[in-house]
């Protein structure tokens, strides 16, 4: 991973910028596209700006997947099996 603190983003190539991207996403709070440190670079490299916005969209939209979609659930047989096995197994109390 490259050191972001010493990087000069105004004079960076797109390949160099991509090397910083994983760390930027980790530390940038999900809004690299709006970070003023990169505005000059994004103006000069609009494809890079588009890439960053796309990756931000994907990361943001991924959060919506946490809640399962409608109709996504295990079959009733899963609970039947669990309930059947639990009958033979007393709970383990740990205090």
């Amino acid at each position, binding site marked *: 991973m490259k050191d972001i603190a010493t990087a000069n983003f105004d004079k960076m190539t797109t390949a160099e910028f991509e090397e910083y991207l994983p760390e930027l996403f980790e530390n940038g709070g999900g809004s690299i596209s709006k970070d003023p440190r990169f505005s000059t670079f994004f103006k000069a490299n609009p494809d890079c700006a588009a890439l960053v916005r796309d990756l931000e969209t*994907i990361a943001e939209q991924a*959060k919506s997947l946490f809640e399962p979609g409608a109709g996504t659930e295990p079959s009733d047989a899963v609970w039947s099996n669990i309930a059947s096995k639990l009958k033979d197994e007393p709970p383990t109390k740990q205090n």
Partner: protein
Amino acid sequence: MQTKPNPGFFKRNAPIAGEAEAIENAKNGDPDAFAKLYALHKRRVYTLCLRMLGNVSEAEDMTQEAFLHLFRKLGSFRGESAFSTWLHRLTVNLVLMHLRKKGLQLVSLEETINPSEEDAPKRDFGSRDTMLTGSVDRVTLERAVALLPPGYRMVFVLHDVEGFEHNEIATMLECSTGNSKSQLHKARLKLRELLRQSQALQPLDSASEPISEKGPAGQKVIA
């Protein structure tokens, strides 16, 4: 010093009505309370298993195992983290153990590190013509996630969907934190590629049609 908020933390810690009481009662052996915990968490646990395994039958088996394990371990839950976080971590560890038993090296982590040329994201920025912003719905994204190579999918699901931190993922997958960050980035790049391909293939009048009904290994895609 300001702490960086972790969006996953809030997602995974949302309080569920009746959960705390059900946990306490289930700890004391109340079968109805355990049934309630199952009802509250079955869909999330099953979805997590399905995303990690890509196979309905295995996902159901692991859901069953996760809740049986929960039953045995519930007494050790002390509320230091949210119950759902604790349960999901327990589930992830069980699924990983299952995959290791099957002989898969950390869900093809090797494949993740050195994916085939076909699976790796292409090293170009693409054009702006097919920018995704504002056009990715959850169904489309879910289907694209199912098409990811297994190792990429694992890191993406654990980090971006489940909200685990890279250090937690590194511990679970027995890899470095840097590796987890790097694989996540590659997973997102690959997803962008898949989503752009799907957009390019879709005629305007069928924008809601799925990418495909089945994933690369013939697994059911979650809708």
